[in-house]
């Protein structure tokens, strides 16, 4: 699957260039091909080359929808905590291990935990997450995380 990941970056650069140019004609298109190929050539050691598979794309879209729903629901509950007259917060720090293997999926999981209100990823050492919780009631949702299950399904 290495062949897939080598042509996806120049295509993304080309799309980015076309959107920035705000018009579509042959001249812009050719300049874009040259520039995106050059950018990919000079940065090829920095770009991640994980085994990104196109047929896993529906699962990623499902992940995005789940993330959006969770963020909206949990943001409303945090707004309730902040706006209530006496804020009953009970901060604590939770350590837990994750079973994900690839670095990209670990980074996605950490960012999702940060975006879901009530929990905040503080540190990520090897496969151990250190999470700061605003209220202790959020901890069970953190252990039986829907995000981790879906990411394991993508990985496996």
């Amino acid at each position, binding site marked *: 699957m290495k062949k897939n990941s080598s042509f996806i970056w120049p295509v993304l650069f080309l799309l*980015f260039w076309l*959107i*920035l140019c*705000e*018009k579509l004609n042959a001249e812009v298109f050719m300049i874009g091909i040259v520039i995106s190929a050059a950018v990919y050539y000079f940065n090829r050691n920095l770009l991640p080359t994980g085994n990104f598979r196109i047929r896993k794309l529906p699962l990623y879209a499902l992940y995005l929808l789940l993330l959006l729903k969770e*963020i*909206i629901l949990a*943001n409303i509950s*945090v*707004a309730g905590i*902040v*706006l209530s007259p006496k*804020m009953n*917060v009970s*901060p*604590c*720090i*939770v*350590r*837990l*291990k994750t079973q994900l293997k690839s670095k990209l999926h670990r980074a996605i999981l*950490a*960012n999702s935990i*940060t*975006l*879901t*209100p*009530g929990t*905040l*990823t*503080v*540190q990520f050492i090897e496969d151990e997450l*250190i999470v*700061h919780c*605003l209220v202790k009631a959020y*901890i*069970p949702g*953190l*252990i039986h995380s829907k995000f981790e299950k879906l990411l394991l399904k993508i990985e496996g």
Partner: protein
Amino acid sequence: MKNILIFILMAGGLFFFFVGTIGLLRLKDVMTRIHSAAKCDTLGALLCTTALILYSGGGFVGLKLIIVIVFLWITNPTATHLIAKAEHVQPENAGIYETIDMNEVKKDGDI
């Protein structure tokens, strides 16, 4: 119909920005302030920018605004994580919060 949708999205975005600001002022600790500040801002930016995409009516401007959303959604949690890490590694902060180790509890199911 479109105007009503734009109004609802923009009002929601402004409400979450307002909640983030109030939380930044009211909460008592650095870590809890990070909670209120970073997340409400991310959702507020999403809602406001979606309202602007509807207002612009598609085209290249809408695509550029989608790039702005993607960029904010990647960078905002990362910056938040870096600030929280910078606060957490300070030696005077060791042992302020109670630490729960989930690796043993996880086998027994719920806490």
